[in-house]
């Protein structure tokens, strides 16, 4: 059975800290891995990763994929209170259609 596991489930840090969120997966027909940020409403897209070892970066956020060990990490440096959110990892599989399987998410709280 395909699965995506995120850790930790929740995390509380102080502003300025650096955090690393983890996502491991076991799926058939892997196509890509995606990270989303969910504040109060819609999940919003952060990164899509398809190749191992190539870092994607956007401001203070970065992510990398290891297709051999089947995991990805999302790093946030110099955290701010606006980074407080649930971070969702999803794996896209090609099964004749495009369908994601999501992890349960990591809830990050950044204290001022």
């Amino acid at each position, binding site marked *: 059975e395909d699965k995506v596991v995120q850790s930790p489930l929740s995390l509380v840090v102080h502003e300025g800290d650096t955090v690393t969120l983890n996502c491991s997966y076991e799926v058939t027909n892997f196509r890509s891995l995606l990270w989303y940020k969910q504040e109060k409403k*819609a999940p919003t*897209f952060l990164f899509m990763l398809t190749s191992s070892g190539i870092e994607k970066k956007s401001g203070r956020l970065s992510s990398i994929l290891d297709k051999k060990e089947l995991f990805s990490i999302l790093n946030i440096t110099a955290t701010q209170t606006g980074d407080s959110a649930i971070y*969702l990892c*999803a794996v896209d599989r090609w099964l004749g259609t*495009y*369908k994601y399987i999501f992890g349960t998410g990591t809830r990050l709280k950044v204290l001022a």
Partner: protein
Amino acid sequence: NAGVTQTPKFRVLKTGQSMTLLCAQDMNHEYMYWYRQDPGMGLRLIHYSVGEGTTAKGEVPDGYNVSRLKKQNFLLGLESAAPSQTSVYFCASGGNQPQHFGDGTRLSIL
């Protein structure tokens, strides 16, 4: 620049009532999806559509029906609501690009 729009945003139903959740996208995406989000469970796929006039079951389809009469719209129906269907429902559109989500519908079944 609406993206994906869901209506209503909130709804309270009594057990056994029926209702339809509406989703509209203006990005010309072929694929549309309905998910539910429950605490500790992540997003789970209910039904999806690969194009106008098509629908298919996801992981948790029981108790729901869907229709995609127009490319831009995807409707989710609850024929006889049950307390277990209390959840936040998200619509998304995409396909060969990252899925784009609506703001969700919070549904409570009493």
